[in-house]
């Protein structure tokens, strides 16, 4: 079920000349949970978005389950199904109910029938603790609930990899826990996860490895137990000093 991601020498230069990613290579094994941290503008979200080609690259490539994402032609849509994505702003479809949000892609993209999709959607909703909200519209849910629906929506396509782009950054503090619990649950089941986050506690507890990015480069990569004990005076030390206070 799970698959790996291989980021190979990816560079990205925006039209305005800003170098967002500078020759980044990173290999994520199947079942691994990788957290990416770093100051804003360090390129961590851009890196994550190159994994399913929401962001194009200037050089390099990303292999998803061994297949090239950035040279893919028509099969790009099929490849993208292997990587579920969760956004900072949830991006639920406001004109559809929670259940329709979850079933839309399986129905329209994969051509599955409602009889197979609906039970799956319902069990996903149960799993994120929103089993009774299937007929609600996104605007009737709290931020935390919306984000959990967004996770269920991504999981409905039965992806091999999950990409989380600051999933708790837009949430009220009391909503963060519920979303992180769902993510922990997912990690414990062996899902490959790339998580861009500011939640150091989550990174420390769940991640197999933590990546520190700065200025479009990977500055440091380590297991959590080593990551959070950096050499004093290093950039990572300064960064952790700021976020952990």
């Amino acid at each position, binding site marked *: 079920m799970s698959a790996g991601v291989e980021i190979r020498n990816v560079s990205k230069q925006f039209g305005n000349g800003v170098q967002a990613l500078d020759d980044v290579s990173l290999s994520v094994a199947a079942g691994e949970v990788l957290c990416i941290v770093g100051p804003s503008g360090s390129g961590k979200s851009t890196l994550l978005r190159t994994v*399913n080609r*929401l962001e194009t690259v200037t050089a390099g490539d990303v292999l998803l389950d061994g297949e090239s994402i950035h040279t893919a032609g028509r099969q790009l*849509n*099929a490849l*993208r*199904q292997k*990587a*579920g*994505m969760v*956004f900072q*702003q949830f*991006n*639920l*479809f*406001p*004109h559809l*109910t929670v259940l329709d949000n979850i079933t*839309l*892609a399986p129905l*329209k*993209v*994969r051509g599955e029938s409602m009889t197979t999709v609906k039970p799956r959607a319902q069990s996903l909703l149960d799993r994120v603790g929103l089993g009774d909200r299937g007929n609600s*519209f*996104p*605007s*009737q849910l709290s931020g935390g609930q919306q984000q959990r629906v*967004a996770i269920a*929506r*991504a999981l409905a*396509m039965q992806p091999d990899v999950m*990409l989380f782009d600051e999933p708790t950054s837009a949430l009220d503090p009391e909503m963060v826990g519920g979303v992180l619990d769902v993510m922990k649950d997912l990690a414990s089941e062996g899902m490959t996860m790339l998580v861009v986050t500011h939640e150091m506690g989550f990174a420390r507890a769940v991640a197999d490895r933590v990546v520190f990015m700065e200025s479009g480069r990977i500055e440091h990569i380590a297991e959590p137990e080593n990551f959070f004990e950096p050499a004093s005076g290093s950039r990572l030390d300064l960064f952790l000093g700021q976020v952990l206070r």
Partner: protein
Amino acid sequence: MNSRWFWHGVYALVLLALALAIYAASRTVDYTWRWDRVPDYIVAYEDVDLRSTLTGIVEISDGQVDIIGTQDAAATETFGDLDEVLVEDGDYVFDGDVIGTRSGWRIGPLTWGLVVTLQLSILALLFAVPIGLLAGLGRVSTNPAARNLAATYVELIRGTPLLVQIFIFYFFVGTVLSLSRMTAGVAALAVFTGAYIAEIVRAGIESIPKGQMEAARSLGMSYGQAMRHVILPQAMRRTLPPMAGQLINLIKDSSLVSVIAITDLTKAGREVVNSTFSPFEVWFTVAAMYLVLTAGLSLLIRRFELRLARSDG
């Protein structure tokens, strides 16, 4: 509360003053108002002549007139409910002779004009919406051919007067493709309105946050699927009010097709003026008929919007 009534009073007074000014202005040109002539051109109660379509002998029984054909005895024609019978039993009538009259309501030329105007507007709208949708999608497309074609269409149409476009459609396109007046008129209006709808559609699509497209694409949807299932349903809801406004504009713009001799409300007005010599009354009436149409529509639209706003999930 008192001051509110005061200002309502001011409003009424200003309107009254305007009406008086119009009346006074017409007095200075020695104009005789003949409002009584106008209603006949909207609906009239009048006698209609009924004519025989056969050549034959008349038989009358209980006020019912039967014509028995002389060339073919099996052919008969029956006239009932006549208000006035102009033939007698045993008369020999020819094809086309008046048998009697029946009075009834007849729809006047202004009402017909109104119907034609509505017909033109609805037909043009039916074609303008798909044209506008296609051009609007072209405007936001990343394909340079589609984008530039759509932009050229919109610029061309919005940069030239509708009246000139109608002439071009009638005299050039209409001649080349041998279109009827009505087809040429509908085509000109549809192409014209389509350009404005394209801009409405483009604005609607662009008002949807980028994250919606990204979420749809990240689920594996193609661009077309994302547009159809995610972006357009949301965009359309937002474009309904300006779209409805465009329909009202279309009704007003349709008055210009009277220049290619389509008897819409405006052309009917001109014809009625020619036969009544009452231009003031007729044009005020025509304006009021347009106003009834557009005001009725905007009322409907406002109700519709309220309902949409309430159901906005």
